[in-house]
């Protein structure tokens, strides 16, 4: 779409990019999706995110916003008349921010380690990863979503990892559902929302992508 007001620079398997796609879908925002060929970064990407040179980048009226969690908050604050993603109460909002920050700091690295290390190191990494998931599971508790009755920011931060679970379960030979059944129940509940189910790619597709990437990199 030429001259689109909202453009998203993204890469389809990225769990960070997916967060933004979910937020845009929740708000019913039309946008121009531009798939980025990551090894060969486009001039636009380098211009819009010179500091990190990473996706996702949201470009709104020509101005770039970077970092998935920051983009999600921006979307919520700019398109504020529909589907609030942040809790209205400051204390609950702070909790949502804390948990999204926790996901950012812990989940990605732990997931990666649990799938790519070998032998004893892998067992240790798997254990660490499950411990992190159990903390998150504990936080959700008996609630439908992280912060209560409404799907929002903290759910968005974590749920995009769900389509990657199959890949790492297969590589690590374990079942996340077995260890964290309530967490998987929460993920499936989120998947009942169109914004999530239409955004997350099929888990097998992610697995194929990952295996192809690995062989290309000679791993």
């Amino acid at each position, binding site marked *: 779409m030429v001259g689109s007001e909202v453009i998203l620079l993204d890469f389809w398997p990225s769990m960070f990019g997916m967060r933004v796609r979910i937020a845009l879908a929740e708000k019913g925002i039309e946008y121009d999706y531009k798939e980025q060929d990551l090894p060969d970064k486009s001039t636009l990407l380098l211009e819009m995110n010179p500091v990190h040179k990473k996706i996702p980048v949201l470009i709104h009226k020509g101005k770039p916003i970077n970092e998935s969690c920051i983009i999600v*908050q921006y979307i919520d604050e700019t398109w504020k008349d529909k589907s609030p993603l942040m809790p209205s109460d400051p204390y609950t909002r702070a909790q949502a921010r804390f948990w999204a920050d926790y996901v950012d700091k812990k989940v990605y690295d732990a997931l990666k380690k649990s799938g790519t290390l070998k032998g004893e190191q892998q067992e240790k990494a798997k254990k660490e990863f499950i411990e992190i998931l159990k903390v998150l599971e504990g936080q959700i508790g008996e609630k439908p979503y992280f912060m209560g009755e409404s799907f929002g920011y903290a759910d968005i931060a974590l749920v995009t990892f769900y389509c990657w679970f199959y890949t790492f379960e297969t590589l690590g030979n374990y079942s996340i559902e077995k260890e964290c059944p309530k967490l998987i129940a929460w993920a499936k509940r989120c998947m009942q929302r169109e914004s999530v189910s239409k955004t997350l790619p099929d888990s097998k597709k992610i697995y194929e992508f990952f295996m192809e990437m690995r062989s290309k990199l000679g791993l």
Partner: protein
Amino acid sequence: MRSSEMADEVTLYADGRSPFVCRVKIALNMKGIKYKNMEEDLQNKSGALLNYNPVHKKVPVLVHNGNPILESLVIVEYLDNVWERVPILPQDPYEKAAARFWAKFIDDKCIPALYKVFSSKGEEEQVITEACEQLQILEDELELKGKKFFGGDNINLVDIAADFIAYWLQLLEEATEMKLVTRSKFPKITEWAEGFVNCQVVKEMLPPRAIMLAYYKNRFGKI
């Protein structure tokens, strides 16, 4: 004044030496919020701290009317949401996103890169180069902005997030006799740092130089 302000109970679990704790103290000071400071011995953490922050077991923890808030930048945003006077974050969503971006950059990239230099005893060229690269990005941003602070004429979230760079880094350099931020190499950062530490609201919250020098000399020694 908030309508319920007289009844507000604000407690900060702190370590006066920490730049992360200091971020919260600066924010509290800027907004004139009354609070109780509970100094923690980090080798012997209080039951209260472990109760309020079981996940990370760290300071700062702010407890407002019995509710704990964790992570320094989350706390600063919380204070900004509840006490709207003397705003720390910009009002405009785009400017707000930019401020959050820079604060995150400082936390995720700058500070870890800087710590690595000193904890690796400055022996690795690559580590020093990496740290200088991150500092250069900040230097360029200050140059681009062309103002006294990241927040413009007044300090904002980004300046507060960068407090380590303005004050503690210098003391770390002094203690280890290893200089990264020279006026010639990073003139904008140097100037910004001087302005920042001289702000009344900041100055009052900084731990004494002697304490930090002693702590750093003990922890990192001379390089």
